[in-house]
């Protein structure tokens, strides 16, 4: 017997095209989809009958339009084929089945399946696969309502099959098969009887769960095979076969009721027709029930039938096995009757068909067709529903004849960020008071295009976030973490990186317009691109695995949908009767689960720290910016993630993460390097250099980056627990944020976006963050608010005084300095009387917390350096050369660029 799920799993396809009359999509998402997205593109397209598509809105669907395309097919009758095509680089496998894409179809019913394969070694089924490709072409040509993406998928599949079968020797005639038959334009019976010599057939075995009311299909088959005895096996269901209509065939007909096959209580859903001649037998299996809709009519015609697909195989002794082991019971034909079951139709889609609804770049574009125009005008309303939450959208509609195009803006709404399926309902409200409605799962091309590996990463992060956070908070944390983990897999530096050696690329001048020929130390650490890439990929895989394990561990800790409710969840003690397996957790087990979850979290965070450190070692290059720009966002998100996990596990936050969180923020965003011995964050350095400056601004200007950078960094800084007013390091970080986000970009929309984000982050912080505190952190940054910048003016004016070329410059600088730092001016003048060059500028040692006196080139002791950097000390004299130590390296263009940004007078003041 065929285990359909195992066969599918073994395929590991890159692309899948699935057609089914109906679908249990929640079952599909839980148990099938992940098996189709283990390799390559992992692209999955599912086509279902339109009526069933309507049922999908009451299914627990989460991934439609996100991880797979779901498309309704609206034929005159039913779209009834069950065709599951899986392709990878050089292989195409098509399962032609009677089984719908439901749990019953895959696990319970008695279903029939055939398989057609074409690969470099297997070309026997090439003809059948080409016939399948013809079906796809027919569908594309005859069915007008496919979305563009599905049309593309069908065309791509046809092309792929043609390419695969290009070199195969395809027989164009001959009955042996296998042949793939469909009834898009020609009835099945005509095609079948063109291969099978009806007069030579002795016996026909027909297995089907459904029949047409007048048994027309059976009678036509009987006419086509006039010498055959007929054995009909029907499902064990009252009212499915009209005995009276079969009276004329009574002499050569037996009817049996299906009782079972193999183990279990199984319902018959397989459709098989076996034609036995004296030498050759033919077997037809697939979707076609013994109905006139399936066998006697084409799908695209005036009197249309269902669209069906079957495989015909011919050979000696074929089919014996198929009918041999069925358990059946004979029934009298007279006792059989047919019951009509009337199904009411839904209002949805009766006169309005939505072809596609695509959410892209903040806009939802809906295309459709108005099948029946009503009198008067209409007003369009568009509502999107996601996870039960409904959002009404304002939209603009345009109509060209019957074609309708509606565009709605969704940027800024929660759905545009979310990665869960959403449904759009389009309603046309006519002036006569009636309405036309249609619904559609929204497609997200940006997510549908993700390759399998990335999809897995995001899926695992999503599982964790769903366990930890409520909807909105969970989504923004998920986005930040998901993007970070996914993108690190792609972290590789394209082209040549900027380096300090000068042999890779001539360094352009810094972005300041001031001429400066000095050599700048850019990156002390150069990492091989391939090494970064390989690290990123392995990190991504590892992170995905960890997140999956963590989700599983958390699921067991947090309220779960169990049938063993916590009515008695406390631990058991002592012995229990042997026969009763204790379903309850004991304290050790409970503690172990917490411990396990805790360890996983530590491992995840350890990985994050490692990944961020590695990212900050990446050389400055425009191609690295799209990734590194997300790092602060990820740091904040992981900080909150950690906080929530600790809250769930009832554990206190480990200190080392707070330490690491601060360290990572400094590595990313600090402007502390303006003072010698400090550090410039990676993004600050990128802002300073022309090669990366523009790309950085381009990324920052993106609405999301801009807002996320501000909000998440503010959250991360606030998690640092010291308080921005006292925390010089975090002041430098926020100065870095202010530097690269720039006040000039602040508009109401962005302000509102940041505000919303901050609210979400506060909500997701388990009470740790307060909105007021975050607002304080985001107070517009002026140089007085950052310790590293606060003393800059007096040193700038002193520098200007010292380098004044004219008496006027000298006088101006003196006046400024007199008001800012009179004692410094006095000291300078006193020294000037002793030394011609009384200033000793500090140099270099970035990131190493080391600085050198420019006068005697000696390294300052740490204690002395700290005194120089301390803003409260007015000035410090070098122990060795006895000159005034200037803590700002005005020769470093990064310093001058940053000072100029925060201290506009600098451009006039500095030389």
């Amino acid at each position, binding site marked *: 017997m065929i285990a359909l799920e195992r066969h599918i799993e073994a395929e590991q396809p890159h692309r899948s095209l699935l057609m089914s009359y109906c679908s249990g999509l929640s079952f599909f998402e839980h148990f099938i989809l992940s098996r189709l997205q283990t390799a390559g593109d992992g692209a999955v397209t599912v086509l279902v009958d339109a009526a069933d598509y309507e*049922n999908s809105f009451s299914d627990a669907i989460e991934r439609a339009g996100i991880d797979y395309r779901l498309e309704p097919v609206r034929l005159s009758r039913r779209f009834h084929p069950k065709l599951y095509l899986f392709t990878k680089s050089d292989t195409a496998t098509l399962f032609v089945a009677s089984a719908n894409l439901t749990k019953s179809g895959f696990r319970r019913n008695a279903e029939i399946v055939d398989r057609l394969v074409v690969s470099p070694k297997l070309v026997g089924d090439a003809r059948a696969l080409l016939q399948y490709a013809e079906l796809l072409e027919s569908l594309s040509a005859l069915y007008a309502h496919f979305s563009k993406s599905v049309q593309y998928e069908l065309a791509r599949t046809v092309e792929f099959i043609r390419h695969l079968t290009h070199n195969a020797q395809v027989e164009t005639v001959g009955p042996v098969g296998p042949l793939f038959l469909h009834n898009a334009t020609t009835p099945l019976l005509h095609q079948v009887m063109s291969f099978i010599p009806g007069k030579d057939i002795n016996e026909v075995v027909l297995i089907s769960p459904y029949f047409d009311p007048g048994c027309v299909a059976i009678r036509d088959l009987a006419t086509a095979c006039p010498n055959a005895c007929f054995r009909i096996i029907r499902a064990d269901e009252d009212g499915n076969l009209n005995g009276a209509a079969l009276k004329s065939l009574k002499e050569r007909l037996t009817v049996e009721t299906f009782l079972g096959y193999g183990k279990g209580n199984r319902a018959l859903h397989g459709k098989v027709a076996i034609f036995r001649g004296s030498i050759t037998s033919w077997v037809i299996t697939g979707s076609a029930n013994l109905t006139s809709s399936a066998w006697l009519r084409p799908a695209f015609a005036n009197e249309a039938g269902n669209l069906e697909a079957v495989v015909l195989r011919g050979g000696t002794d074929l089919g014996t096995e198929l009918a041999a082991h069925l358990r059946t019971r004979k029934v009298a034909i007279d006792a059989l009757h047919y019951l009509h079951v009337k199904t009411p139709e839904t209002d949805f889609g009766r006169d309005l068909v939505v072809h596609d609804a695509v959410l892209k770049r903040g806009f939802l574009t809906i295309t459709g067709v108005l099948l029946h125009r009503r009198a008067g005008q209409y007003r369009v309303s568009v509502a999107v529903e996601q996870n039960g939450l409904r959002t009404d959208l304002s939209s603009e509609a345009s109509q060209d004849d019957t074609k309708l195009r509606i565009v709605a803006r969704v940027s800024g709404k929660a759905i545009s960020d979310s990665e869960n399926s959403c449904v759009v309902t389009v309603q046309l409200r006519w002036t006569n008071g009636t309405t036309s409605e249609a619904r559609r799962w929204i497609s997200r091309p940006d997510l549908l295009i993700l390759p399998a590996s990335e999809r897995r990463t995001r899926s695992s992060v999503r599982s964790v976030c769903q366990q930890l956070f409520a909807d909105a908070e969970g989504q923004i944390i998920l986005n930040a973490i998901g993007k970070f983990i996914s993108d690190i897999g792609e972290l590789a530096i394209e082209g040549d990186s900027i380096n300090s050696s000068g042999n890779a690329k001539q360094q352009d001048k810094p972005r300041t317009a001031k001429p400066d020929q000095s050599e700048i130390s850019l990156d002390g650490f150069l990492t091989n691109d391939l090494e970064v890439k390989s690290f990123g990929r392995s990190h991504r895989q590892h992170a995905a695995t960890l997140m999956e394990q963590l989700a599983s561990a958390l699921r067991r800790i947090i309220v779960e949908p169990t049938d063993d409710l916590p009515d008695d969840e*406390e631990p058991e003690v002592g012995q229990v009767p042997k026969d009763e397996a204790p379903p309850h957790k004991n304290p*050790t087990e409970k503690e172990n689960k917490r411990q396990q979850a805790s360890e996983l979290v530590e491992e995840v965070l350890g990985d994050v720290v490692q990944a961020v450190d590695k990212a900050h070692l990446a050389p400055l290059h425009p191609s690295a910016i799209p990734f590194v720009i997300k790092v602060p966002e990820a740091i904040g998100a992981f900080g909150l993630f950690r906080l929530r996990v600790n809250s769930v596990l009832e554990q206190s936050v480990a200190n080392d993460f707070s330490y690491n969180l601060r360290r990572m923020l400094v590595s990313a965003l600090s402007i502390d390097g303006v003072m010698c011995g400090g550090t410039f964050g990676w993004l600050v350095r990128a802002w300073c250099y022309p090669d990366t400056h523009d790309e950085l601004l381009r990324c920052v200007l993106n609405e999301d980056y801009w807002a996320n950078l501000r909000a998440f960094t503010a959250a991360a800084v606030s998690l640092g627990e010291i308080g921005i007013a006292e925390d010089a390091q975090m002041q430098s970080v926020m100065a870095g944020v202010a530097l690269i986000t720039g006040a000039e970009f602040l508009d109401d929309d962005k302000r509102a976006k940041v505000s919303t984000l901050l609210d979400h982050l506060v909500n997701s912080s388990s009470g740790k963050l307060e909105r007021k505190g975050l607002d304080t952190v985001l107070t517009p940054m002026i140089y007085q608010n950052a310790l590293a910048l606060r003393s800059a003016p007096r040193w700038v004016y002193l520098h200007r005084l010292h380098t004044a070329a004219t008496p006027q410059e000298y006088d101006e600088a003196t006046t400024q300095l007199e008001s800012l730092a009179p004692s410094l001016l006095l000291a300078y003048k006193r020294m000037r009387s002793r030394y011609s060059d009384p200033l000793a500028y500090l140099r270099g040692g970035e990131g190493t917390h080391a600085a050198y006196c420019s006068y005697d080139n000696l390294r300052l002791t740490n204690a002395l350096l700290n005194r120089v950097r301390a803003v409260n000390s007015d000035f410090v004299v070098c122990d060795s050369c006895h000159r005034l130590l200037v803590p700002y390296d005005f020769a470093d263009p990064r310093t001058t660029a940053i000072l100029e940004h925060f201290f506009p007078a600098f451009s006039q003041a500095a030389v």
Partner: protein
Amino acid sequence: MSEFPGWTEYQPTDEDHQGVYPLGLEAVGSYIVGHYLLPGITDATRHIRYYSFFSWVFWTFFQELRRQGRTTYKRDEFFNWLVRLENVLRAATLDTDRKFIGLIGRSKALTLEDAKNGKLRIDQEVAASGFVPAAYSASFAALHCGQYNGKRAHLTPRGEALGLAFNAQFAGQNGKADVLRPVLSKSSHISVKTIKDIEDEIRIRPVSPDENEHPLLMDMLLSIASEPDGNENELHLARSRTLGLILEMIDYGNGTIAEPDDFHRIFACGRLKGHPKFSPSSEFARECEIWKRYQERQFQKLGLYGLWHEILDFLSTRPRQTAPTSEIVTHMLTHYERSSFLKSWVGESSLSKSVAKADRNILDHVGDHSKLGAAAWSVNEHLHSAASVADRVGSSVVLLLMAPHFWSDSPNDLPHRQLHNLGGRTRLCLSIFADDVHSRQNDTMAQFLFWVIESCVLAQSSRIALDKLARGDFRFFVMRDESGYRLIKAQDRKQSLSFDASRLFGAISLLRSLCLIREDEGLRLTSSGRNTLKKLRIRHEATAT
């Protein structure tokens, strides 16, 4: 030879499963009770004396080991010991009261009438043990009578003291210790006379305040005197305060409270019918607020289960017990329109009214927010008593419009408001449900009902069943199948149209078996109960909000 074409393999599923909780909503209420109100006890823990008895079983077993100079034992040895003593316990208890309620294994228990030649065989496991997690063993550990140490269980000092106190009854009376000897031996049979001699000492019965066990059991359950164990301090104090609240409510009811439903009524309405408002003392106000949040959640849950049952009933009448969503919705809309109950709350032709309008009508009907609980209670009563499908659908819809107001109209500083976030979207927690309903204010009631049926009932049941299937349990009640939803298993209406396990029954029973309350045309405090209540107030004075 290729296996294709061929029949598909059957993957066993048990469609006649024993699953419960089809919408998975119960976990929230149970979690609240289990973690914030009555941790450590359940509705199965009815008799306080089981705790002393099991402590004694352990104590005697360890004594016997010590007597033999052993430090280790095999799993079966303790198991056999437990079986023997539980058989004696059951026989003794049933000899006094043949219909004793709450005796674990009663239906299959050996009685003295099963004795042959005056002897009863006690070494065979004939009935279910009370020492299983679903009965007493989990609670035994949670109340710190015993604890695991690796693979073996040990008595805690409390368990040891309880075992000793239980044993003291035999030791303190002339000849009883001798009578006990055969019971504690390995003989397979003991005489009926022996059982009768120790019947009162060993059987399950209330424990009166003058017995040695009583203060120990009081401390175990109520933590009045001792400071609870550090790790789970708050759990024990929460239980203690909740039991204090229960005593206070019984005192308030003064005989008019008879069953858990009366407590639920007070949590919902703030009073009993015809009584003044119940105001908890400040020591127990916290727990009372938590109960209110629990109760508010119940109305949402019952509204959803009300519709769920109508769907199951409808599917059971369809061919192949299957119907597409559209047909299910049409059926519900038809009955909605016929509901006179709904008309009285929402007005005529309400299907075309907006949700906002229907909501306003309901709120007008209720009066003000303070009466919402009482109004929801009356709708819930109607849901249970309504004879027609139409009125059951109507009651459910009214409940579903009322419930969100417990969240959306309550102040941000409402105590324990965050409990309405518990379970998140997967359990359709009240805060999320309220947001969802709010986002549909402009929808018609027809669209609202459509959404509830699609998203909150059918999709929710699939989601829960699939979650359970993922861990290997087939628990579908309805399933997406060809032509719509197929009924897999019908469900007893009473089972899901009830409040989430509140453990109130267990709590009342335990208090009764400690002789703190008595049943006298309803529940009343005994003098001991009144004293205990006073002590509990003093005990929790410092933590009063």
